[in-house]
């Protein structure tokens, strides 16, 4: 109804027959059928009232919903399988019987969702007819609600009363407030559609932002940090002193075995020279781990004069210099075996006194 009426009038009846007679009387008065509505507390047979059967488009909605569901199901089974193909158990990429299951479910789901939305929207709108109402309509009264122009008002109300109506109510729509409310009601009806669509699009957009990593919840379950690797990135446990006795030649895979050189003063002097070139920058003058570059490393360079390094067997010191350790690089390509042993002599003698002069 496009709102050409100025008044809404509601009459209540005890008997369905009375209400139907009054509807017929109103029709005879020339009031168009779209402006007459019959209300009841429970569904009555539609033939009781001489009004045309209300049209609904639910059949179309059902078909459209089912079609959308079917297509979505096809996307799930065929589309996703072909987007990222994976071999599982020798089954075909698009399995036959499972496809039927998924198509069935998706078709029914979308179909019924569409029907519900259509039904809910249809019930909710248009809302401005509901401005005249009586709670007795949910007890046992039948109602006739009619929209009237000012010309039709008197004869219609007379017809209602003559038919046995009680509890007559009238909504005078002449006022600006009433017109405004009617207009507002119609906007709300359309607004619900818009809100639904916009809301749906917004929800999908937000979902995509999360799904594609635009926003992330970082929680400590990432497999990137691994216990098996992490333990080897930090300081390693050395074997306790004398736990694994290593005397004699040092064996490093892929390199010939080497014997330690005697710890002479000459060896120590050569070692001091080498220390100035190779080791001082990190380990410092006296090997305390306080060289100019020490601050850049974590963990910091070891204190070579300290108890940990001093308690290491010479072969272990040799191995560390050769292979590197943690952040310390391997010096196998910088030093020969003999030079490395000279350094070992020097390091072992660090407890007695400073190593090098700058």
């Amino acid at each position, binding site marked *: 109804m496009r709102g050409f009426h100025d008044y809404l009038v509601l009459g209540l009846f005890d008997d369905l027959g009375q209400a139907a007679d009054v509807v017929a009387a109103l029709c005879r008065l020339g009031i168009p059928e779209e402006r007459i509505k019959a209300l009841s507390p429970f569904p009555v047979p539609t033939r009781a009232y001489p009004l045309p059967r209300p049209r609904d488009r639910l059949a179309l909605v059902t078909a459209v919903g089912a079609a959308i569901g079917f297509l979505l199901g096809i996307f799930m089974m065929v589309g996703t399988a072909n987007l990222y193909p994976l071999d599982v158990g020798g089954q075909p990429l698009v399995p036959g019987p499972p496809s039927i299951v998924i198509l069935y479910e998706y078709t029914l789901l979308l179909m019924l969702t569409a029907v519900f939305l259509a039904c809910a929207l249809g019930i909710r709108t248009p809302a401005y007819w509901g401005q005249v109402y009586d709670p007795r309509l949910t007890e046992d009264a039948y109602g006739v609600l009619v929209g009237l122009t000012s010309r039709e008002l008197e004869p219609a109300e007379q017809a209602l009363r003559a038919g046995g109506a009680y509890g007559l109510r009238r909504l005078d729509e002449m006022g600006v407030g009433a017109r405004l409310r009617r207009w507002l009601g119609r906007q709300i009806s359309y607004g619900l559609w818009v809100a639904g669509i916009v809301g749906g699009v917004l929800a999908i957009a937000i979902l995509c932002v999360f799904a594609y990593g635009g926003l992330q919840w970082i929680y400590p379950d990432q497999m990137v940090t691994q216990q*098996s690797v992490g333990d080897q990135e930090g300081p390693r446990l050395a074997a306790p002193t004398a736990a694994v006795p290593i005397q004699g030649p040092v064996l490093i895979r892929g390199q010939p075995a080497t014997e330690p050189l005697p710890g002479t003063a000459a060896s120590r002097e050569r070692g001091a020279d080498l220390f100035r070139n190779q080791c001082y920058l990190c380990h410092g003058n006296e090997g305390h781990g306080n060289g100019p570059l020490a601050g850049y490393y974590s963990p910091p360079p070891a204190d070579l004069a300290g108890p940990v390094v001093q308690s290491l067997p010479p072969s272990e010191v040799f191995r560390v210099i050769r292979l590197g350790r943690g952040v310390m690089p391997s010096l196998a390509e910088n030093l020969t075996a003999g030079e490395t042993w000279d350094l070992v002599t020097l390091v072992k003698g660090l407890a007695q006194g400073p190593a090098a002069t700058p």
Partner: protein
Amino acid sequence: MADATQAEHKWTMVVDLDKCTGCQACVVACHAENNVPIRNKSEVQANRAQHWIRIERYWVGDPPAKARFLPMLCQHCNRAPCEPVCPVYASVHSQREHLNLQVYNRCVGTRYCNNNCPYVVRYFNFYDPYFPAPLTEQLNPDVTVRTAGIMEKCTFCIQRINRAEQQARTEGRDLGPDEVIPACVQTCPPSALLFGDLLNPESRVSKVLADNQRALRVLEHLGTEPAIYYLKGGKSYVRF
């Protein structure tokens, strides 16, 4: 220059039941290589022992009964029943290597895969793994440590396969016939376990399996087409 990381391999294992003594060295080796946690006594009693390869012991006959050992590990079936049932594609098949892959970071722990595995060789981490220090020093950095809620199983030491393939590619050659050795195969004292590429006629498994009267596969009638062949000759005490 050959790209060994793209070549097709059909990784196969041969278990010689006539040589297996049930010593469980393979079990220990697998624990060490693959960071498999050791579950405590009450967990084992609750039937949650976690060994990617286990020695199943069957008593046969009336007392004094004979014991028969069956090393059981993931059979890497070509028609693996565990794969189609995983809802998140954590259990998939590698067509190049003919392996059943378990993707740890994808697993949500529905445990459907083990229900469908007729060999029951998949393990679920019911608790977080506990490696008391200094056992943490022994963890293999090439292998993920699986946290609670994740399924795991034998991978045919895929980290060793990968390392060998990458080494071969760096050196510009094909993979050698017996270059890949999983931890259990490496450790087995009587060499009851053999591993290799069935597509390579030079590999030991190809030679052993050619025309072998003793070869059988476990639960073959289910049509899973496992990749592990068991050799059993002589008097058969247990019918599979």
